[in-house]
């Protein structure tokens, strides 16, 4: 099985790569879209600003290969943090910008919806993940487990594709899925044991 990690050059790819080898699997960090062509599983991490990263994706034509792999070949993808947000329709981060549009969901600025005098933003740290819909990613993980978050934007419309939510004054989506497409708002590679179980589930069970 060929696990490929997309490296857009703006974030910490090393941790996810090492975490996967710790679990006993080989993975390859890829910097160009043509290297995704033979992927069996795609991990799409991300830190950064949505519009800036989307520009990189469009410039290097990642979107075409991703569409081919995910929609046509039905290869499973796991978007992590900004990676999850990029799988959505659009975001208003810094400037309104279209995403990859695998999920018909909008990404919103948390500070427009949360009273950050009381609930500090960005949302950084460990928070509970509440399971709303049985998800294969959460096999062997207890409902309400803590995962590590670090983000200022999120998915607040909770009517479709939502597997798990997390609360920071309001509920936002912490896990989304649709067929072979998965997204997590937290960082499994930084969430110790439960994070490793989740990654293993994505690699072996999805």
């Amino acid at each position, binding site marked *: 099985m060929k696990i490929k990690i997309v490296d857009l*050059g*703006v*974030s*910490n*790819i*090393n*941790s996810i790569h*090492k*975490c996967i080898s*710790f679990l006993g699997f080989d993975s390859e960090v890829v910097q160009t879209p043509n290297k995704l062509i033979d992927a069996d599983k795609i991990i799409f991490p991300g*830190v*950064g*600003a949505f519009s*800036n990263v989307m520009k990189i994706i469009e410039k290097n034509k990642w979107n075409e290969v991703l569409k081919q792999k995910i929609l046509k070949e039905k290869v499973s993808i796991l978007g992590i943090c*900004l990676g999850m947000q990029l799988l959505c329709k659009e975001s208003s*981060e*810094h400037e309104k910008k279209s995403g990859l549009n695998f999920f018909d969901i909008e990404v919103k600025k948390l*500070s427009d919806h949360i009273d*950050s*005098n009381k*609930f*500090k*933003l*960005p*949302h*950084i*740290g*460990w*928070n*509970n993940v509440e399971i709303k819909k049985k998800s294969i990613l959460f096999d062997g993980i207890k409902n309400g487990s*803590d995962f*590590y*978050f*670090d*983000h*200022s934007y999120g998915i607040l419309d909770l009517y479709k594709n939502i597997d798990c939510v997390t*609360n*920071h004054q309001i509920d936002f989506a912490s896990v989304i899925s649709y067929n072979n497409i998965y997204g997590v708002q937290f*960082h499994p*590679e*930084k969430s*110790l044991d439960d*994070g490793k179980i989740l990654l293993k589930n994505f690699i072996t069970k999805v």
Partner: protein
Amino acid sequence: MLKKRLIPKLMFKVKEINQKKYPVIVTTKNFNNVKFVGDPISQAKIFESQLTDELLLINMESLDLDKNEFLLDYYKEFSNKIFMPLTIGGGVKNIESFKKLLKNGADKVCINTAAIQNPNLISQASKIFGSQCVVVSIDFKKIDSNYFVFYKNGKINSKKLLFEWAKEIERLGAGEIVLTDIDKDGISEGLNIEVAEKISNSSKLPIIISGGCGIAQHFVDAFKNTKIEGIAAGNFFSFRDQNIHQARSQILNNGIELRK
């Protein structure tokens, strides 16, 4: 519910042993009295197993990342062995430094002197990497009745007023603030609750405070009386392995939530 965070602060200096350069953790008192106490990676392993929440790894000498490639290799090795959230600081000058650190294992980047010398770096970095990646550390000292911001490892008074600088950092787009009271550093007599309260009440950003933890009760006092999100400690966590367990249980016994 978002949990409060306990953050070991690994301040290191580089020591040359058999012509090879090694980062070694140090502890300080008022930013002086440097004592070498151990290896960052083996210490971080202990912290990882003790349920601390994040690590702050600071190159205290602010060695230039361009001229000290071995540091980047070291950070990479560190993050290959430690799976915790990691913030790296020291020697960050520009966007290129951010890129290098993120590429070699940092999840967040901490700036201090660079923020004073070039405040626009905060807004530039937050536009490129997202504000959640930009941590600004502020070292401060009380002179007469005002708190002033110091930089260059606490040596130079920037003449900026602490509370104004904290506001300015927030306006520029930082994602988090780490506050350290230079006079309380290494003294073990408690954190600066007054400053923590004032800034955490007025800022929308997560506030981390540091400097002065000596007993578990100091953590409880700070969490109970302020809206801070986390406490960073160097000496307190480094000298006795049981300190983290004691601090955690005392915090939990006081009804303050930590990660399980």
